[in-house]
Structure formats: structure tokens, C-alpha cells
């Protein structure tokens, strides 16, 4: 697995870097591209970027740890985001986050043991009218309840078995 990742990094990361050659302000979009290719930012990729762009790895780490969107560890197959915006908070978003955290046995920001789900809290998804909101991958589920979320989880697990 490790060796395989390294191989991919060398080719794909370099190809992605070349795409931005000679442009300004590229570091964040480049990292976003790398993350969408691998699902997270592999350490090897950071070293390659640092070399290619002639910057220090610490500058890249600075960006990665500042922005909530970047991950330094592999993610689960599905990412569950539970909105904790004001409206979702008032409508009971916390109960849903607590339920998921208990059910999956992980805290927010972590990935379940079977690598099926990563759990995240987000500040606001801008869908306050459907509060509380849960987003799994890119599908939005509004007016969520613990019951609804329970069914959703089951649905995603069944998909896996198919």
C-alpha cells in the first residue's frame, strides 16, 4: 500500500504541479487538487511540492493546518458532515453529532475503524432552512433526526455489501 501511494504521488503530484506552472497564488488550489486526487495530503506529496516550488515544507504545513478543509491522514470511504451552524444548533444539531459520534465510536475529525465513515462538524452549510442538516459525501439531508440518520447509516453500509 505504502509503495503504491509513493508511486502515484511521484507521477500525479508532478503532473498537478506542472498544471500551475508560472501562475501566482497556486499553493491552495494545488493542495486542493492533490487532496481530491488522494482524499488527503500524503507526506510524500508535501516534500515533492516543496522541492518543485522551491519553498520550505513548513510553509506548506502552515497552510494545511490553518485551513479546516485539508487532511493529513487518509479519510473514510464516506465523509459525514454534521452542520453545527446557529440554526442547526437551535434545532438540535448537537444531538445528531453526539449520536453519530457514539454510534461510530469516533470523535469529530476521526475515521471509523472499518474506514467506512469519517465524521466532521462544519460551521454552517448555508441551508439553515432545512436545519438540522447532515451531508454525506455531497448529498444533503435536511431536517435530520436521529431516526433518519440511523436509516441513512444503514443504507450506506448496505451499499458496501452489495
Amino acid at each position: 500500500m505504502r509503495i503504491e501511494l509513493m508511486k502515484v504521488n511521484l507521477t500525479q503530484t508532478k503532473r498537478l504541479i506542472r498544471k500551475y506552472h508560472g501562475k501566482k497564488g497556486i499553493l491552495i488550489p494545488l493542495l486542493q487538487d492533490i487532496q481530491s486526487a488522494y482524499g488527503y495530503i500524503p507526506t510524500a506529496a508535501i516534500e515533492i511540492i516543496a522541492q518543485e516550488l522551491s519553498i520550505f515544507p513548513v510553509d506548506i504545513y502552515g497552510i494545511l493546518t490553518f485551513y479546516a478543509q485539508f487532511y493529513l491522514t487518509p479519510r473514510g470511504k464516506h465523509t459525514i458532515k454534521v452542520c453545527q451552524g446557529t440554526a442547526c444548533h437551535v434545532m438540535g444539531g448537537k444531538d445528531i453529532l453526539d449520536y453519530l459520534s457514539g454510534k461510530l465510536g469516533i470523535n469529530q475529525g476521526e475515521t471509523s475503524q472499518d474506514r467506512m465513515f469519517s465524521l466532521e462538524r462544519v460551521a454552517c452549510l448555508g441551508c439553515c432552512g432545512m436545519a438540522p442538516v447532515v451531508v454525506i459525501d455531497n448529498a444533503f439531508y435536511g431536517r435530520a433526526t436521529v431516526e433518519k440518520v440511523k436509516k441513512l447509516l444503514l443504507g450506506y453500509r448496505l451499499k458496501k455489501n452489495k
Partner: protein
Amino acid sequence: MKTKIIICMGTSGISAGAIEVVKNFKKELSRYKLNAQCQIIRSGDRGLFRDVLVDIVTEQLGRVTYEYIKPKDVALIVRQHIIEGRLVQELRAKDDYAQFFEEQMRIVLSHCGEIDPEDIDAYIANEGYSAIKKVLRMSADEVIGEIKKSGLRGRGGAGFPTGLKWEFTKQAKNDLKYIVCNADEGDPGAFMDRSILEGDPHAVIEGMLIAGFAVGAQAGYVYCRAEYPLALARLKKAILAADRKGFLGKRILKTKFSFDIQIKEGAGAFVCGEETALLASIEGRRGMPVTRPPFPAEQGLWGRPTLINNVETLANVRYIITKGGDWFSSIGFQKSKGTKVFALAGKIKNTGLVEVPMGTTIRKLIFGPGGGMLNKNIGFKAVQIGGPSGGCLPEKLLDTPIDYESITSTGAIMGSGGMVVMDKHTCMVDMARYFLEFTVAESCGKCVSCRVGLKRMLEVLEDITAGKGKPQDLEFLKEMSATIKDTALCGLGNTAPNPVVTTLQYFEDEYEAHIKNKICPSGVCAGLLKFEVLIEKCVKCGLCFGVCPAGAIIWEKQEYAKINLDKCIKCKACINVCPFLAII
């Protein structure tokens, strides 16, 4: 006339199944060979959350709105409404749908939910890109003059006069200038920018073009949150389409004016909504604010003069140009002109986007288009305005007119226009704690007062909500709030104590109940809940008995109600249902 089928397909419409509904319409129309007579319009969201909204416009029946449409309802609508010409009464939008729109004045939102945002021809047919054509025949000073005359002020929160900002950027001497559209709508509880980008992206592009022409800029950036995938996708399409039609790029409409727009996707940092942090982020650095001056109008992106306007501000521009600054300034109130879009959410009947003239009272907004409280039994307690930088206002301030100055005088701020309504089951101390938790997590860590001060305040609030509050805590919170307000580097820090300041100002009794009596009167703070029935408040109505899943409530009508703590599973169902707040 072709029959029009308008289906709302913003983020909320799609999450409720709008894609399936469209598919079924296509299927049904081809089944009856009606494709040529009917036109399906995939519009943005209209602002009211009714799952999938479908409007049918026919010559015979006019325009009819159907709400909560499921894919299975489509066959009935096509057969009965479109073919037979009879209304499907059971699916029609109820009276409150019309009430929601009645008291609004839609300028910025006029296209949302009406036209297909991915179809540039639909935008052009609705006077789109006519403002830029007009502007290209004017001088830059005339354009700025018109914006100044309109009295438009920044809709992102601070309310700085837009015309002045444009003038400063124009006056800055440089061969390269930038326009930045701030679409990093991070305030929890605000979603007007997302809806505008999803429902009418061309209006924002046209606003940027006009701004670019006026200040002499050649390039523009839209900095948009990554949390808005649909808005980003529609904006990308819109830019491509505008480029193909010659509204972007070199020598626009065969004049000397050239302008390009690029999208920069945010990476999840609330502070990037602050303009200097936003610029740092576009440049590919950590989004940390810097001191001003120099203002971005003099030294902004890559050291060049940069004009930064919010999405809603830019979306207003084309209407001001076509209808005139005088028209715009005739709408509104005192020093706040035009309309403002508000995002109504929380414990309110109609959640959604409402656009009203400035000067409308908060009460009118909540009980007019908002339709009043979600649960009439549980009354209004507070409305939170302005997100984490704003404040919670009590009932006695509901008649405050909505304009920058009046709202600021209450201790809240206009902010981007989020309004979260709270009922008596919301604990104000918990709300203050919630907002601080948010700002602590989002503080960039550059200045001490924000990084350390907010954290200390949060710790005290956590203690209070856990029942470990001390009498001197309130004094500490007040003092710390004032210090942070005075010393923080950027807008995020300066305004972060506002939720604490306003809740202390208007709901101090709740803080005292938590600290002195160790109770949470709203039944929210888990550490303080005793699951006891307060005999003096209880009317023995039995609502709690009905909802308890554990059978832990002992109740006899008109006689007594109490909780058997041995059976109680502490699920809070009884607390949430009690209209009298008799269980704590």
C-alpha cells in the same frame, strides 16, 4: 404560449429530490408527446423552504404553485393540470406561501426561482447585461456618481458606502487593479449569497464588470467557500457562458474595456471573510488579517489597488445602473437605502430568504413573511442578528427598524443578514457559549486578545453552563469583552464578544439563575438538568406524559405530574414539549 414548468433546483430543492422530479416530468411529457408545447425551467431556489416547489404556467390557468412535490406526484400534475386543465388542489401551495412573498420587495432576488441560472439567454431576456452596455457608454466618474447617489452600502456587514469605496480604488494610481467578490459567506445562519450565486450568478458577474469598468480594473476574483459546491459549479458555467458571448475577456462588446474573472475556492476558514485575510488566502498564504491602513483600495492583492465587495452588494449594482441611483435611494430608510436580504431560520414557521426595504421592523419580518413562531405554544424569546459578530435581541426590541445605525445601537450588528429566531426553549447562556466556541475555533491566533481572551471567556461560560459558575464570573466577562473589543486586530476579534455582551445586557437573569440557583430555566444545559417538575409552573396538562418514551411520567389529569427518576432516560422529550417550562 408554451406551458412553463418551473422547478426550484437550488441546494435545498435538490436535497429534497428535485432531480427525480425533473426526470419524471421529462418522462411524462414524452409519454403524452408534449415536449414541444412545454418548457422545463430549472431555476434557483425561491427562498422559501417547501421541499420541491413546482410552478406551472399555462394560458388557461395562469401561474399555479405546487409545494412539497414528490417524484410520484408528477404524473398527476401532468395529466390533471397540463392535459385536462384542472388544478390539483391537494398539492397546491397553502395560503402562507403567498403571505411569505406579499410583504417582500424583491430586487436582488427577483431572478431567483424564476429563470434558469445556467441559461445566459434567459438572463439576457430579462434585461441582463443591459447595465454593462449602458455603462460602457458612460464615463467611469458618471458610474461612480450613480452608485454614490444610490446610497448603496456594503451588504457584507460593515455597511461602508459602496460608491466611496469605488472612488478610493479609482483614485489609487496603478496600472493594474483588481475587483474581488467576497463570497466567503461564513456567518452561521446566513445563506443569501449562496442563493444569489445559485439562482442568479450572472447578476454578480455583471456587477463585477461594472465595478471593474468604474475603478479601472482588468481582472476579478470571486472568493467562494468550498462548502457551496453548487454555487461554485453554476458560477463556473456562468463565467464560461459570459465569456463566449463576449461579455468577458478582451475588448468587451468591441470597446477598449477588457476584464477577466477567476474563481478562488476557499479552504474552510471563517476569518477569510475579513478582507485582508481573504486577500492573503487568494495569494496562497494563511488567511491572517493585517492592520489597516493601508486599505486594500490602495494596496490590496499582490500590492495592487483592490476593490472588495460582497455578493449581494455587487448583485444590486446592475439594478442601480438600469433604474438609476435616485430610484434606489427612494427605497429604504434614513441612511440605509435599498433593500436587504435576510435569512430567517431557527424556531420560525417560514424559514427562508426574505428581501425587504431597509427600515422594516424586525417584528414585521418575523411575524409577516416569517409567519411567526414554529410552535405557537412556546413563545418568542430572542432573535439573533448578525451571526457570531452580532447579538441576541429580546422581545422589547422587536420594533427596531432594520437599518445599519438602529441595529448597531442595540449592540448587535446588521452583519450579512442572518436572523435566527429562538423560542423559550433556547438558553441564552448556552447560545453565548456556542458562539464563543465558534469564534475560538475560528480565531486565526495572530493577536493575543482574540487568541487568549476569547478562550478564557469560553472557559468561564463552560463553567457556568456546567453549574460551576461563580458570582464574580459576570464581572470578568464584562471586563474581558470590553478589552477584546478595544484591542483585537480585526473585525472578527472586535465583534466576537458581542453575543456575550448582548445576552448579558438583555438576559442577565438567566446567567444569574445558572450561577446562583444552579438551574437552566430553558432546560438546555445538560449539567444543570434535574428532571424535576416545578409544581408552581405545571398545569398538569399531560403533554409530557404523551411524549415520554420510557413511561417515566406519573400523571393524573388536573391532579399531579411528576417524573420517576428510576425510569427516566434523560432524553429531554418532556422538557422540549412543555409549553410552560415547568420541567427543569
